[in-house]
């Protein structure tokens, strides 16, 4: 009848359109194929591109393309900092800070030469804006310009690490003249008087290979090449970072060549790209991890207050099953809160002193704790996923693993707000599944967190020896000795069994073969495309 064929006709037209569209190159990417790098990633957490206010997960990738820092970390080496805008650094004469010698011949995108004044401006602004990044350099007292090529960073507490932290994109160096022109203030009135954020959201004044040309929230971030880049001409004319929230859409887009890189594919989707002749799946171990924090507050759960009960949890979980089945094999597992790749944490060490699945041992520990029939506790988690694995799935897997040792985990899905509130206000009554990603690549940040705020959250009062080990390790400059101290620290963490690390993802990113030099990194900014260029 009439209406039915109307409906059919409409759809046929639509499908014809779809087919034609798929075949036609759309007008917007006529120039894209050769000279534009298109990246598909979920940018929904982006709320600003002002480095001094950086606290989210995805924006650092853009920042690292537009700006540079004094020192940086090479992908895969998360122990030694490498020179970037500074070529040399040493302790100041009085030992209270670091003296950085700046690189010659570095120009901003505007063409002006970078000097120590710009460094002072940028770092002062972070300190005085008092937004989240400022916390990580709270031990910095002041920045001093010695001469146009030398900068001193004086610390309040010289034993605290600085270099590794300065590698984070939040401490990018930008051009004082331009940012000040757009309302940037770096002195103590910055907190209320600074107005540059709005401009920095849409532009950049950095030394990186590309400069920000625009940002449309939840849509695109546009970058264009910086012709004054000190390392030579960047490989692409433009870079477009496209927000694609749906992993299936990212898969289709990278398959069709609409995007060159897809960041958020889930393991099942990655598996389908195995034999694709046009795509290579790059893998890079991250420094993030998913862990379970278990309280020891007797008022919340008397069973969990017993150390052996918590250790039993650590020995009951099927880590390999989680890694192979849920994460598609793409994960590693550190001993404790120091991700593998940092000094003192290796897969070998995990085999030696870390948790592993051993049901007999778990049952034995339970007997030692006086709980031969097991116990029950509440396991909370939020409505989210990491590398395509939802916490819900992970929790159910853990629940069934623990059940085999006689431990009953009652699942308690919560919304993110309640979960975070409960967790950060130290009120979690059982276990919490959550995620940790480094604000900067510095062991001390993680370790000290575990004996301070994270310890409070699980109601643990760490013994003074443990706290001392952490401080000594953080201050120790000899890497070998430092690794030994970190080993001691990790043994203590395993012994107290409040934090069980479930897995440390190896990020799998699909990159089309026409792009060379696209470098993933676990250092916190996901990727470095300063050396990326089209394959000729």
């Amino acid at each position, binding site marked *: 009848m009439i209406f039915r064929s109307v409906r059919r006709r409409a759809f046929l037209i639509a*499908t014809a359109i*779809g087919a034609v569209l798929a075949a036609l190159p759309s007008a*917007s*990417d006529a120039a894209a194929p050769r000279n534009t790098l298109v990246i598909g990633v979920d940018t929904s957490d982006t709320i600003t591109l002002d480095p001094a206010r950086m606290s989210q997960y995805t924006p650092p990738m853009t920042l690292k393309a537009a700006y540079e820092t004094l020192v940086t970390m090479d992908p895969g080496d998360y122990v030694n900092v490498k020179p970037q805008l500074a070529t040399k650094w040493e302790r100041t004469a009085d030992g209270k800070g670091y003296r950085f010698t700046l690189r010659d011949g570095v120009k901003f995108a505007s063409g002006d030469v970078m000097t120590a004044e710009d460094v002072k401006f940028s770092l002062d602004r972070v300190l005085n804006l008092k937004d989240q990044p400022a916390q990580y350099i709270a031990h910095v007292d002041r920045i001093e310009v010695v001469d146009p090529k030398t900068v001193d960073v004086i610390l309040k507490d010289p034993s605290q690490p600085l270099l590794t932290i300065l590698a984070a994109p939040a401490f990018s160096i930008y051009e004082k003249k331009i940012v000040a022109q757009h309302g940037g203030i770096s002195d103590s009135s910055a907190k209320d008087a600074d107005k540059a954020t709005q401009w920095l959201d849409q532009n950049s004044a950095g030394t990186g290979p590309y400069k920000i040309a625009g940002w449309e929230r939840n849509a695109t971030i546009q970058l264009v090449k910086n012709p004054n880049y000190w390392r030579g001409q960047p490989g692409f004319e433009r870079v477009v970072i496209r927000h694609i929230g749906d992993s*299936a859409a990212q898969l289709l887009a990278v398959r069709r060549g609409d995007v060159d890189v897809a960041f958020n594919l889930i393991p099942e989707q990655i598996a389908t790209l195995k034999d694709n002749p046009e795509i290579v799946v790059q893998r890079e171990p991250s420094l993030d991890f998913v862990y379970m924090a278990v309280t020891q507050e007797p008022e919340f759960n008397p069973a969990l207050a017993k150390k052996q009960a918590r250790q039993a949890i650590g020995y009951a979980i099927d880590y390999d099953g989680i890694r192979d089945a849920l994460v598609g094999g793409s994960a590693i597992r550190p001993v404790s809160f120091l991700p593998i790749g940092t000094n003192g944490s290796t897969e070998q060490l995990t085999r030696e002193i870390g948790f592993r699945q051993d049901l007999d041992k778990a049952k034995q520990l339970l007997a030692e704790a006086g709980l031969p029939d097991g116990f029950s506790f509440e396991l909370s988690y939020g409505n989210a996923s990491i590398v395509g694995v939802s916490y819900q799935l992970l929790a159910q897997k853990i629940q069934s693993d623990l059940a085999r040792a006689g431990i009953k985990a009652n699942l308690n899905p919560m919304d993110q707000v309640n979960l975070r509130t409960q967790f950060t206000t130290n009120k979690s009554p059982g276990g919490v599944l959550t995620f*940790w990603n480094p604000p900067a690549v510095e062991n001390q940040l993680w370790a000290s967190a575990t004996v301070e*705020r994270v310890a409070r959250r699980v109601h643990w009062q760490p013994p003074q020896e443990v706290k001392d080990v952490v401080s000594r390790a953080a201050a120790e400059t000899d890497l070998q000795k430092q690794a030994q101290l970190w080993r001691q620290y990790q043994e203590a963490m395993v012994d107290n069994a409040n934090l069980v690390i479930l897995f440390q993802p190896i990020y799998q990113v699909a990159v089309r073969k026409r792009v060379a030099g696209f470098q993933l990194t676990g250092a916190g900014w996901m990727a470095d495309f300063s050396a990326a260029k089209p394959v000729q």
Partner: protein
Amino acid sequence: MLRYITSRVAIAALMAVLATLVIFLIANTVPGDPVLTQLGDLAASNPDYVARFRAKWGLDLPLWEQYWVFLRGIVHGDLGMSIASQRPVLDDILQYAPATIELSTIAFALSLLIGIPLGILAAVRRDSWIDHVARLVSLIGVSSPTFWLAFIMLAIFYGGLQIAPGPGRLDPIAFPPPTVTGLFLVDSALVGDWDTFWDAAAHLVLPSIVLAAATLGLITRTTRASMLESLQQEYVRVARAKGLRETMIVTGHVLPNALIPVVTLGGLAYANLLTGAVMTETIFSWPGLGRYTFQSAVSLDFPAIMGITLMVAVVYLVINLLIDFSYALLDPRVVRR
């Protein structure tokens, strides 16, 4: 008549505001603190930071004062700042509204285009196979869970047959047309960008079919029942006796009367669609109000929640008012009651 109108409008406005009050109260009984999800781990444990953030968002004021700030803002057209996106809620709503309007309107038009003729034919050929088919189609449409139907459509036409484009309003690497209305079909046509036009149209196909499915059932059944009722009327017999052709009777006399209840229910259904279909928008990654509603609820973004509640309440109340007014115009007895 004027008094009737003004009193109804006043009551409606009051109700919209009351709705926001109720939501505000409920949302504030939740023990969670939305601020903590916006801060990184270190900052969230730092009482100074938390306090400063709360002060910035006015969350440290007593409850009644927070609500008062909100009310004052409404008068100026300011719905507050969203904690999650850190920009005015009104901006958020204006950004996401066109996507929903476009989708809902197309879906609604589709359900009318199919539903009304189907209903008419079902009424006119009662108990024939077409009547049964119409009934089956509408029942299946109404019985399918939207979230599942969306998945099935995507799985079959996008994943399996690969003839439909994927989720989203446009291809992932396409760029939206310059914003005039926010409706991609309109905006791209205005500048003659036909590539984008067809892209947007193709992306609209699956989600509007999904959304139309349930509304279709409603429209078909209402049209059928209303037609049957009208066909009973005296004047139809008279017209037949006079010798008028059947088609003339149906289209010229019966149909206009029969469509009144359809308009009523259709209006409500449209309002339903407009206030955002969370499931469909979530599965199709449609950046519309439904998805925004869900995300704001999930992150306890108070200003956004209240802004949305206000908007939804206003839409419903306005449409209800319009429907009631149309009755009042048609039937003066209504006013007195």
